[in-house]
């Protein structure tokens, strides 16, 4: 048996074809001309008069394209709902990943309120600084993940409170939109005074929407983390 490894003609041709296509795709990507639409600059121009929000991304997400955010939150809710149906929830559920460490337990006790507070701060300042509902919600959920890792099965999450938060914040989002429509504007339009740019109580409806989004995302990602960390170990089944 010879040490030389034979490579078939088909393999060589496939490799050549793949590399040629990759070069072609890379060339297309690198030579792409970025046409600058005026949409973003128009939105920046009217941002000061229409929202008074210091963060233009927030005003796009919650005001100019608020309906898209509603759809996005709905998709997140549907996905978590599907996971809840899919994963078996039985009494045999136990935490499959955890660290039994005293240092972690004591540190978590100190850190958990601070993490939740920081998440709330990020949510409430979404219209003033980088951040917002999605980011702050994920930070709060990471605090709960730390609790799951440190305390394992002895940490009981109140599912009623969690579902209440999730449902009420989702309903609150739509309710704010309907109230804005009744107050004379469009659905999810602005009905509150705009205030002064850079103040916490400013930019009308935006912080309210982002607070609802943040609470909803926090509740949903917490449920998601709990589903995955407290599932019955599939390898034991």
């Amino acid at each position, binding site marked *: 048996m010879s040490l030389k490894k034979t490579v078939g003609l088909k393999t060589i041709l496939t490799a050549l074809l793949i590399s040629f296509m*990759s070069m072609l*795709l*890379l060339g297309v*990507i*690198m030579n*792409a001309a*970025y046409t*600058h*639409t005026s*949409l*973003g*600059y128009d*939105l*920046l*121009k009217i*941002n*000061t008069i229409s929202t008074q929000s*210091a*963060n*233009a*991304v927030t*005003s*796009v*997400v919650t005001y100019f*394209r608020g309906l*898209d*955010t509603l759809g*996005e939150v709905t*998709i*997140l809710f*549907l*996905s*978590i709902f*599907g*996971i809840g149906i*899919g*994963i*078996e929830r039985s009494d045999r559920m136990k935490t499959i990943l955890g660290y039994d460490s005293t240092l972690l337990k004591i540190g978590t006790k100190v850190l958990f309120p601070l993490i939740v507070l920081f998440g709330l701060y990020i949510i409430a300042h979404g219209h003033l*600084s*980088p951040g*917002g509902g*999605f980011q702050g919600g994920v930070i709060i959920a990471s605090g709960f993940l730390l609790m799951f890792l440190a305390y394992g099965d002895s940490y009981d999450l109140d599912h009623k409170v969690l579902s209440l938060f999730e449902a009420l914040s989702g309903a609150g989002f739509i309710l704010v939109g309907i109230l804005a429509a009744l107050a004379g504007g469009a659905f999810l339009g602005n009905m509150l005074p705009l205030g002064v*740019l*850079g103040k916490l109580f400013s930019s009308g409806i935006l912080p309210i929407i982002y607070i609802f989004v943040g609470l909803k*995302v926090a509740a949903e990602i917490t449920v*998601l983390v709990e*589903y*995955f960390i407290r*599932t019955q170990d*599939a390898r034991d*089944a």
Partner: protein
Amino acid sequence: MLETLNQTTFLHTVVAIGSFTIFTIGLVGVLSKKNLFKIFLSLSIVESSLFLFFIGSHFEVGKAAPIVADGIKLFDGHMVDPVPQAMILTTIVIGVAVLALSLTFVVNYYRLSGNIDIDKMDELGEVQ
């Protein structure tokens, strides 16, 4: 030297090559791995390359983030386009939701069939 590197077109090229590399890594993972879990995680890597490409290709030298902060007093042409960033924010959230849902399907498939190798799937009667 650094001035020539700090050009919008050059940085766009760097972003294109980098995100293309990440895309290729994810694609190779999708095509070559047999484990369902790893296939879905590779898809998520492909997704992250798209995020990087989209955000990076709308970056321009000398323009700030669209946020009124310390040095910047008003919204004008010295800021980058906020629309792609808002869109990618939406896409990231949806990507997380879809990844979680698909991983749930993988867990359930494993629980029902005891198999996670795509070569050994024979639910449609195609026994190898």
